[in-house]
């Protein structure tokens, strides 16, 4: 995969990050290098191999359906960038 083939604008949009022109250029070229390195994975025969999501033999963990105390409203909101009446304030979402 060469740098030219990476649609950096599309990826930045998916990631919801504004990138400067300089960042776009630099990242596209650096990612090209990394992807070239990664390309060698294509030579591995993975037919019939199951993917590993994580290496712990633990699956489908359920907890008892019992209410437990959590954070208070004050604690939950202590890091909010803007708040009013026990709610987080954001710019208008719906017209």
């Amino acid at each position, binding site marked *: 995969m060469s740098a030219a083939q990476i649609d950096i604008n599309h990826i930045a949009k998916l990631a919801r990050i504004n990138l400067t022109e300089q960042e776009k250029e630099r990242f596209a070229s650096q990612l090209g290098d990394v992807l070239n390195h990664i390309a060698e994975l294509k030579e591995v025969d*993975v037919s019939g191999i199951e993917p590993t999501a994580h290496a712990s033999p633990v699956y489908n963990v359920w907890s008892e359906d019992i209410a437990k105390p959590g954070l208070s409203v004050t604690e939950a909101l202590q890091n909010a960038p803007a708040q009013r009446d026990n709610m987080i304030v954001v710019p208008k979402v719906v017209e």
Partner: protein
Amino acid sequence: MSTPIYFKSVAELSNDLSSKKISSVELTKAFIARTKAVDSKVKAFNSYDEADALAQAKLSDERRSQGKSLGVLDGIPIGFKDVISVKGQPLTASSNMLKNFVSPYDATVTQKLKSVGAISWGRLNLDEFAMGSSTENSAFGQTHNPWDLERVPGGSSGGSAAALAAGEAPATLGSDTGGSIRQPAALCGVVGIKPTYGLISRYGLIAFASSLDQIGPFTRTVEDSAIILNAIAGHDPLDSTSFKTEIPDYRAELSKRKGPWKLGIPKEYFGEGLDPEVAKAVENAINFYKSKGCEIKEISLPHTKYAVGVYYIIATAECSSNLARYDGVRYGHRSKDAKDILEVYYKSRAEGFGPEVKRRIILGTYVLSSGYQDAYYVRAQKVRTLIRRDFLEAYKEVDAVITPTTPTPAFKAGEKASNPLAMYLCDVYTIGVNLAGLPGLSLPCGYSKSGLPIGLQLIGKPYGEAELLALAHAYEKEHAWGTRFPDIEGQKGAL
């Protein structure tokens, strides 16, 4: 000359406390003073709360005077990598995104350490969101290697390794996703363990790559690591990947398990790129084990060369997903000139994240994007299966695997900063362990001619920490590497 208090091991300090040679308040003051004396050069700490640490120490001394000591860690200060929550204290991940964040609760490891009387002492610098191998990616400035201030301490837990090596804390916690405990431990000449995935709860740890992240200790000695693991290991219902298993008394097991062990030397870890001085030091360590009656067997981990590639697909994919939560809405940085909700996302993330974090989010987003997921992400997960299988096959014949921790001793600051791929390749020997979910330990095994520490990596079987620690202890008790200390006062501070 006797060892200064700030270079003593946890076990020694604990003895001094129980024999009333020193109080926890005195001890804590000694680490505060040491930190004030050297941290302007080392820059290991992001923040510390002197009054809070002393208040905890006072409570510890009161408990002890009433005969109610909580055990070996009661009154011992421990530093935290600044991705581990300590209630009421800042938690930044060395990112402008979380510059003003205060932890609303304790991580499970923090709570466990507090419950045995340990003193939470400061938050330590790292590569932003634990992404990096040099602690140069911190938004708050780089940390310096105490052995040579112009060199990097490694990363991402560089602050945790450097603070310990510099005598600013007697033990610290870090996290390891691809080598972030073992690599800085090697570069700073201390002991560091990445436990088996699932042994230690990740609740309250800022997530980078959830299937790889694991918390572990940095200590001066293997025995101290056993002491800390005793306190923090074990199942936690708050972490769904936490594993239910019998936790032995790691410290007691150190002297009970005597080998001789069958040790595997993977030929893929001794090839091109390995510094000759590192190779020699590791070879000497292997010969030591041989002299103790251990059987040394050359083995092959044939998929080793793919580990870095697999890692940078899986870790960045998981990071792009985990870091989606930093959207400027509920916590973290919010852009001041966002006019609508989408601009809150786009601008807050652009302003809050540093270059390496952006680079990894972009790469991770790319490998998960429509049309590429099977070619990259799913394929990487399959090769991950093969990498794990390599190790499990090897463990049919050997008890542990020995490798160098890093290809070279500490490199100069700035040397690899402009080349992400070169930086990624620093983790070539440590990454496989995370992908396979195994326990890995780095301990000092010598110094280069220029006086830089060299690390030996020992890799164990899943949940085989007791055996792994005993194996490391057998080496450590006959080698005095841990009794050398860096001369920080004698060095000019680096920029």
